[in-house]
């Protein structure tokens, strides 16, 4: 046997009995940030491919959601910070080895690019909003400029949106100390999942039949890719070192097994995949609106499970003899 007991009182918040530093705020950001990336990528792709007729919502209106969704996500992220007044410190340095530092700067760059993307289609997408901006000479001039370089803006959007979608996964995978996250596939998995949730959002909001069909097909491709990436990341953990194999147990019989297999894989991937196949093949369209809702639930479940299982995975294995509950039993003396 090998037993490691903590014999002095250690009950440090966030660490004991197991690491639990991040809660729903970070999972929510990972979800909304990924969705923003997907929104911007699809809006850009539809512009580049001139899909105004087939997919009018995605081409001219979708982009407006990007800064809104991203701001919600960043608000959640801000709520997670423990030293909130010092949030500006993200922007007084750039740490090349820290993916979180890259992320902070990516977020800052994405906003103005997103605004340009919105302005490049605002006249056809949101006529009343455009007329408001058009009242100012400079506003009119800026929109004219964005419309003229619509395709160029769309091409610029794509790499930054991909960076936004992929960096969160790279950020987690860079934690060598957390074996569950420590897989190179995680970045791609988050990117594909983010695009899938954005496609689901389009299916839910778009009114035109051709657009719903196009995005259902796109989503099916993304779900299939996501399944492949999930399998790859499981293989990567299962064939890793002892820490990775231990970490994998948390979703293979451990505490996150149900959430991972039922919520994420079952409800979030397999059922919507079947529903979308039925819909595309024309066999059954009655449940068509259910698939995108499940995809959104699955997208969030993925972030929450990966975050929770990951932060608990560890290299150390202490048992503690100390329990803070014992202190509560002491007679109070003031």
């Amino acid at each position: 046997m090998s037993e490691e007991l903590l014999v002095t009182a250690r009950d440090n918040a966030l660490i004991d009995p197991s690491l639990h530093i991040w809660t729903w705020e970070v999972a929510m950001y990972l979800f909304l940030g990924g969705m923003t990336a997907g929104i911007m990528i699809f809006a850009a792709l539809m512009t580049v491919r001139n899909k105004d007729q087939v997919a009018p919502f995605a081409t001219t209106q979708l982009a407006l959601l990007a800064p809104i969704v991203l701001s919600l996500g960043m608000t959640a992220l801000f709520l997670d910070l423990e030293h909130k007044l010092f949030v500006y410190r993200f922007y007084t340095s750039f740490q090349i080895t820290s993916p979180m530092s890259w992320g902070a700067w990516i977020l800052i760059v994405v906003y103005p690019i997103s605004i340009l993307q919105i302005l490049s289609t605002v006249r056809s997408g949101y006529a009343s909003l455009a007329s408001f901006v058009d009242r100012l000479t400079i506003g009119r001039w800026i929109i004219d400029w964005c419309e003229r370089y619509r395709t160029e803006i769309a091409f610029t959007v794509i790499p930054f949106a991909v960076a936004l979608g992929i960096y969160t996964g790279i950020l987690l995978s860079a934690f060598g100390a957390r074996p569950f996250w420590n897989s190179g596939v995680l970045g791609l998995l988050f990117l594909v999942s983010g695009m899938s949730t954005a496609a689901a959002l389009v299916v839910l909001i778009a009114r035109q039949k051709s657009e719903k069909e196009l995005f259902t097909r796109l989503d099916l491709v993304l779900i299939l890719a996501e399944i492949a990436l999930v399998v790859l990341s499981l293989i990567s953990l299962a064939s890793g070192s002892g820490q990775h194999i231990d970490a994998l147990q948390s979703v293979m019989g451990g505490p996150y097994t149900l959430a991972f297999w039922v919520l994420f894989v079952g409800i979030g991937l397999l059922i919507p995949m079947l529903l979308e196949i039925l819909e595309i093949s024309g066999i059954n369209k009655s449940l068509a609106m259910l698939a995108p809702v499940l995809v959104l639930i699955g997208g969030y479940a993925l972030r929450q499970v990966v975050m929770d299982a990951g932060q608990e995975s560890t290299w150390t294995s202490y048992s503690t003899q100390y329990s803070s509950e014992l202190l509560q039993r002491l007679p109070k003396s003031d």
Partner: protein
Amino acid sequence: MTRYAMVIDTKTCIGCGDCVIACKTENMVPEGLNRDWVVEATNGTYPNLTTEFRSERCNHCSNATCVTLCPTGASHHWNDSNIVLVDAEKCTGCKACIAACPYDARLVMHPEGYIDKCTFCHHRVEKGQNPACVSSCPTRCMHFGSVDDPHSKVNHLLKTREHKVLIPETGNDPNVYYLI
């Protein structure tokens, strides 16, 4: 890089926990939190059991992942040494460094919201003194000094005694050694 090391003799440590109390007193560590702790490790099968006491803390790694992953530079190596400190004025409380430590040793979230941790008592090291835990050890099982100085006690101990570091395969290059 000046490399400061702590060398702890598990043969003479009795697990009394004075190092923990000394640290809390010296550094005014907030109530309920600890920057160091004692582990009692038991190995083997009855009746052939061995027990080892280890006073543990931040390993002040030469290749510290908490420093490389900190997004603001708050987590840094002090004065071109291996001593890892956190600048509270730069810390956003994002907690990335807690997740980045394979030893789960970056663990004190100060009630004010920034990360607090073992400093190897750099304020004492500056004056040529030992860290508080080392100074207060009643069995004199803890030693501190520059590991690359051929005349230092820690250098001598590591040359002459069998020793180990915790989980060297993390690649973090830890600087707390245990004599075994």
